[in-house]
């Protein structure tokens, strides 16, 4: 098919949210079809150069990304001038620099993978490797920290392999298969090191990373039988954070203590990659429902996409803003004070929109909620 204007429009207008597949009697994997189309465009060099620059040159190279982010930390103004609003870096650092009074997410002083981690408790039962992801590493280390802490408390030996990088989903979503493959191989080596016993479980506080590792990585490596096989073994071990955590709690038979009336009210936004991509809808609700220091309320249309959609929030900014603002008003209507989600894309999308709407709602990840509200005392942090 000729790659005309309409062709490019259709390909760019997909959020990769998977709602169509979830509803489809034939389970057509539209996101995969769209991705293949984007890969075709990318191969013919018809996707945006800046998106390509970022996903190919910056994200795969930790050194370069660190330099860029370090630079930003040193001088917001410079950063703001250097990267235009439309730039592909907003793939992840969405809308932070648009000069319209909206803020960029704070860049962490010390990246998570550079922080010293506590050594596992003696007698730990399960060996869990934590995949951190870009957002939790560079922007919100508290998310990864929370995941590591609660898993350690739940008697896991948490390993945070240092060789890991970006999960590759941003590159993959843009059809930049080469860059995505490079990252896949690197993560494979970090998470399933050759000649060593693999971890029991691989988890990530970000469901999109988990989705990439579990659902897309094997297919991406299918041309190399050996890598493909290892990727499948990796995929089998991946569990979204909330699933793993609720399982651990079930194992240790923690029963819910009744939360008192004055604990904060939480609600949950289903990340598309969690609910539709990985089919996990129960675990996060169970996790939040069991927290002694908080109460849970279901919001209307919790599984409607937040409009981030990787490159979508750049190529269709107006639409993306409409979608997220609808999402937020639904969350507010639920009466919740804290909006919890489990994907770094959603986290950024929701928090930057909240900031610009000047709302009292707070957005955090399931891992943070698990840590913050696990006991009644700590409920009012």
């Amino acid at each position, binding site marked *: *098919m*000729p790659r*005309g204007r*309409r062709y490019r*429009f259709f390909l760019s207008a997909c959020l990769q949210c998977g709602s169509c597949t979830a509803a489809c*009697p034939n389970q057509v994997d539209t996101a995969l079809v769209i991705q293949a189309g984007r890969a075709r465009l990318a191969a013919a060099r018809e996707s945006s150069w800046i998106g390509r620059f970022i996903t190919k040159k910056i994200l795969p190279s930790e050194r370069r990304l660190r330099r860029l982010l370090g630079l930003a930390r040193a001088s917001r103004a410079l950063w703001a001038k250097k990267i235009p609003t439309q730039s592909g870096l907003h793939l992840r650092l969405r809308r932070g620099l648009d000069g319209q009074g909206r803020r960029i997410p704070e860049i962490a002083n010390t990246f998570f993978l550079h922080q010293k981690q506590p050594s596992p408790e003696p007698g730990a039962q399960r060996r869990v490797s934590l995949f951190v992801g870009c957002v939790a590493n560079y922007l919100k280390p508290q998310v990864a920290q929370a995941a590591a802490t609660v898993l350690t408390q739940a008697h896991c030996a948490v390993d945070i392999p240092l060789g890991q990088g970006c999960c590759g989903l941003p590159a993959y979503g843009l059809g930049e298969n080469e860059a995505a493959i490079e990252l896949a191989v690197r993560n494979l080596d970090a998470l399933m090191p050759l000649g060593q016993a693999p971890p029991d479980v691989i988890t990530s506080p970000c469901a999109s990373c988990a989705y990439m590792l579990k659902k897309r990585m094997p297919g991406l490596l299918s041309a190399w039988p050996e890598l493909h096989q290892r990727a499948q073994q990796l995929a089998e071990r991946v569990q979204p954070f909330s699933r793993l955590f609720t399982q651990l709690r079930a194992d240790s038979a923690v029963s819910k203590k009744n939360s008192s009336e004055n604990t904060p009210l939480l609600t949950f936004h289903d990340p598309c990659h969690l609910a539709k991509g990985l089919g996990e809808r129960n675990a996060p609700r169970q996790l939040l429902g069991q927290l002694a220091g908080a109460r849970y309320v279901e919001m209307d249309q919790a599984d409607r996409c937040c409009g981030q959609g990787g490159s979508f929030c750049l190529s269709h900014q107006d639409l993306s803003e409409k979608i997220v603002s609808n999402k937020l008003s639904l969350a507010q209507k639920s009466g919740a004070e804290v909006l919890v989600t489990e994907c770094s894309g959603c986290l950024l999308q929701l928090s930057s929109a909240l900031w610009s709407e000047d709302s009292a709602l707070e957005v955090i990840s399931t891992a943070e909620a698990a840590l913050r509200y696990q006991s009644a005392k700590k409920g009012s942090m």
Partner: protein
Amino acid sequence: MLDKASLKKIRRIMGKEAMLNTPADVALYGYDATPALDGVAPEAVVFPQRAEQVQSLVQLANQENFAVVPRGAGTGLTGGARPIHGGVVLSTQAMNQILRLDTDNFQVVVQPGVVTGDLQTRVAREGLFYPTDPQSLAVCTIGGNLAENAGGPRAVKYGVTRQQVLALQVVLPQGQLVRMGARTLKTVSGYDLVSLLVGSEGTLGVITEATLRLLPAPACRSTLLMVFDRVDQAAAAVAKTFRAGVWPSAIEFMDRHCIRCIEEHEPAGLPIDAAAVLIVEVDGSRPEVTSAAERVQQVMSEMGARSVQVAQSEAEAEQLWRARRSLSPAVAKIAPLKINEDIVVPLSTLPGVIDAIHALAARQKIKCVCFGHVGDGNLHVNFLADPSSQEEVARAEHAARELFALTVSVGGSITGEHGVGTTKLAYLGMEHAPEALAAMAAIKLALDPRGIMNPGKVLPDELLAKERGSGPAH
């Protein structure tokens, strides 16, 4: 091939916004919901709003000799809406108005693009009821339902789409805009053209308006779940229920593989060790429903049901129906290719037929999933195959052929509701005598001598060519 001039004429009829012809825009109109059929993109897609536009387009098609393929929501399961001979896809998407709701005469007049579920919701607000409920009702259209004579779980009591239609407005294949039927509950004036058009799969004309019959909404419903350890007991219980004087509004059957599939993908609490379950719904006034539900429980227990459970709330009933609706996607998840047949057999033969189906699948070493609206003898048989193995696909196709032979041998029909489209063309001769097929061809040729109306569907091209050759010259 449509040339520039023809496209221009079509655009003039439709208006600028109502025609698409760039490859990216038309590509998806080359598919419907039939698994494993390749896309065959049309040359243009049009979205008329009025019957007169449809008429002008069909007239033009006769002059310039291009195919017109009507399309509702594209949920058809036999390839009916795929433009296999190119030409123009006529989407009814913009003809989606409910024109008149006549509560005094229990009638509604609709355009063909109205979504079935939307119509049900609308009439329910007046305390009325449109019973036909294909499991695709959230998206499929009344036009598509009429063209396929669609059924659904409730067909056992309320009949299929044909039973709901009083009158139609149709653009015939040569461009005549005609009305047929009457806005009365009965009529015997002349040949029954409505019956001819219903189920004609878009090959005898485009339905541009329909007058449908409505019913008073039943006051109350009850849904029951019956669990069986033996398939033949479940199958035999169906006829037994009627004999006990109960006329359920639905009887759905699911075999062991279905239950497993659902429980793996969208757990609904069905017993995974059961051989089969029946979901039975009864409706009517409260006392009727209570006594019918009791009788159903009694019959089922006598027939050997391991457990009989009555949904205690709307929510519980809805959970059962949701499980039933989630079946198609769940089956699709376990098998990359499903060959989906919807045979219908006389009720008394059900137990033997289900047994024989499992046996023939085992003989062909093919996984087979069986479910369906068994209340009217309709069984959905899905043969599951791995499309990368040609040999396995061939075995599945062989199993399908054996299934049809079995069906016809007990006096059944090869399709209860999905139609022939293109996927069942090869099997039509197993059910109908050559003379009957020749009569069908004569009708098609009389109404559509140029063969422009959804060509290649329902009747094989070779048959039409042969009949055209032997018939009187036009």
